[in-house]
């Protein structure tokens, strides 16, 4: 009986982690086939975190990156620490019931609205950088582009109400995780890989640099634009799916 208490000794956990790693890769490929502008390549990690907690979640993220590199994506390995953190954060949020609770719909709308406004603010700040690379004050940006903020705010609120709905807490948790992920992966990309990953997002980095920023800031800016959105979507997909699971499956994992 006691061997079930150590997460790595329980065959259920082991199988789940293995399947979750495969899920990461397969769902990531599915999203490419569907031609959607997100990665969604940590669904499995977030799921394990939500069901089994931070240790299992972190381990799943770490091993998932190891598997990625074993499949030939050699440059996935240094990001293992990012995947680990995502799994740990998903686990912490999971232990606090984020994935099992419904938020009131206005929370979903508010999250959507805030997210889009913040995103626009972020992008506009960088695009309006001064000649010497310094960033203008937020207040100036808001005043100068009030109409744009109004529109994005409305789009965000409506989108949040419709798409996020009652998953507001999960969405918020995802955004936070995405920000942390961007913060941790920026130095890795900047110093280890010279600021590039060979994918389409390099264009974004290039445009931030063109507006006068250095590599680290540009890479972080790119991450801050894509990672929170990607993780918000991942967390919400996991939230939706956990609420679609039969009771006996949830009970099986609750007992771990």
């Amino acid at each position, binding site marked *: *009986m006691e061997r*079930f208490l150590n997460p790595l000794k329980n065959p259920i956990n082991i199988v789940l982690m*293995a399947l979750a790693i495969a899920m990461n890769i397969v769902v990531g490929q599915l999203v490419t086939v569907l031609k959607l502008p997100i990665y969604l390549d940590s669904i499995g990690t977030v799921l394990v975190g939500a069901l089994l907690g931070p240790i299992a979640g972190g381990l799943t993220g770490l091993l998932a990156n190891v598997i990625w590199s074993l499949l030939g994506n050699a440059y996935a390995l240094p990001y293992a620490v990012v995947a680990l953190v995502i799994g740990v954060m998903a686990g912490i949020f999971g232990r606090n019931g984020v994935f099992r609770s419904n938020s009131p719909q206005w929370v979903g709308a508010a999250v959507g609205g805030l997210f889009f406004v913040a995103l626009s603010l972020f992008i506009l700040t960088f695009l309006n950088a001064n000649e010497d690379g310094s960033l203008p004050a937020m207040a100036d940006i808001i005043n100068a582009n009030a109409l744009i903020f109004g529109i994005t705010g409305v789009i965000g609120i409506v989108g949040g109400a419709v798409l996020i709905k009652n998953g507001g807490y999960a969405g918020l948790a995802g955004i936070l995780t995405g920000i942390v992920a961007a913060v941790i992966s920026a130095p890795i990309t900047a110093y280890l890989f010279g600021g590039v990953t060979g994918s389409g997002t390099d264009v974004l980095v290039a445009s931030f640099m063109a507006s006068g920023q250095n590599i680290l800031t540009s890479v972080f800016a790119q991450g801050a634009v894509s990672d929170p959105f990607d993780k918000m979507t991942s967390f919400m997909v996991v939230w939706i799916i956990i*609420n*679609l699971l*039969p*009771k*006996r*499956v949830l*009970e099986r994992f609750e*007992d771990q």
Partner: protein
Amino acid sequence: MNASVTLEHLSFRYQRKTVDALHDLTYHITPQQITAIIGPSGAGKSTLCAIITGFMPQFFRGQVDGTITVNNHSPITSSVIAMLPHVTLVTSQASSQISGVCFTVAEEVGFALQNLGLAPDIIRQRVTDALHAMDIAHLAERSPFALSGGQQQRMVIAAALALQPPVLVFDEPTAQLDPPAVEALGVTLKSLATRGHTIIVAEHHLDWVATFADAVLVLDQGQLVARGTPSHVFDMYPQKSGRPYGIRLHSYLMQQGICAPTHTIQTIDQLVLTPPPDLQPPVVAHMAPAIATPILQIENVHFAYTPDTPVLNGINMHIGAGERIALLGRNGAGKSTLLRHLNGLLRPTTGIVRIHDHDIARRAPGHNAKHVGIVFQDVRNQLFAATIRDEIAFGPRTLGLSANEVQRRVEHALTTCGLTDVADIHPYDIAPARRRLVATAAVMALESDILALDEPSAGLDEASIQQLVHAIDDTTARGRSVVLVSHDLNLCAAYTERVVLIKAGRVAIDSTWQALTRAELQLLDDEVGLPMGHAVALRHQIDTSTPLGRHLCNPMALR
């Protein structure tokens, strides 16, 4: 080996449940025999298999009362690994029993022995013996994932045999197998029993049980409701056990005076036909009318996945309204490929598929769903909703119907498939057999002109098959057609009028069950087998157009 399994007032209740899954079971399983456990879906067969193997109460938490002894050990107080030298379990889904850690079949078969730390030469010897016992020595170096379903099951059984347990438990082993593999499994289990193993098999496949089992236990709602030899049980307790097709045919023939009313037979090979000289042909219900305008036309369709592997070599076929068609063929003959051409999931390399005269290759497959709905074999690939009602509503909603229409269709599908009592329950919280009905109801709700079912009866108990048949009747009564792709030839003969055989990518037979010539019967037998009545006709060289032949091929004989 002389291992017995003894149950004494055994009861088990799963944690958080209010009803016993097994209640007060007392039985002694005789060693060196095949004992079958039958009963409706949800009766507790799988629970009993798991408890014998040692999975309770650690793996499946719950309350155990009474005792159970397996080879003089208690699986309740022992863990699964401690019971491995005495008993192992093989379930129906072979692919889920592959460990995933081993890269060759030989390694997989010896994996348990490796983990137990046995010496290398002992492991090698036992693996060789097990591979030979299951006739898969030639697959030793293959990847476990590169095998067919039947081969994977043999590998899993070999892995169990390598542990040399005297007791072998099987939970619905025939569910995923085609008829030749089903027969081969029976022969294998018989030889294992002869070598001294005690075999316990939970099954829905009653004809298989009738042929191969030495003793039968009938479970219903966790209780033992009948026991005895197969003929005894099927004879005395047909309501509780269900009736194998062989028994149904035999009863019908006895009723018609074609067979002497003797004691029941074990297999149809034992049938002795004594038809009266003035035998009248049966009155068979009028067949579907001749096709006026076909709904679906397949014209000279060729298809190849890659240029050098042609699969379909010129298929010509029409499907009219209200038809019931059995689509038969060996694995690899092209049935599944043809099925996917019906709704445009695959497009022909040359040739055209028309629905209501429109070439469906121009439309996305999703748009063809309102004309052709397919229920695929693995329902896990389809189910994702939180309630059965939502699951069924998904199709109509995706079609863009009004809320009222969606509701109407959902209610109709629930009623037709007998799911009204579980409408608000999660699809995975009901028994597996009913889950297949959920998948069928979900596709039926599309109310498409043609409904195709891929292996709809695999793993279904008799009650669920009856429900399925009811749903098929409802569909065709409304002028829609049903295509059954199935290995269950008796089911096909009982409930479809038309039979289409695909051989080497071509239509080899396109006829009604009643009108099959002797040559066609032979061809069918060579390719996939025959329903029981037709098999008897072929064996006794009786023409299907004679009164005796008509009786043998009467679909009512199998119902």
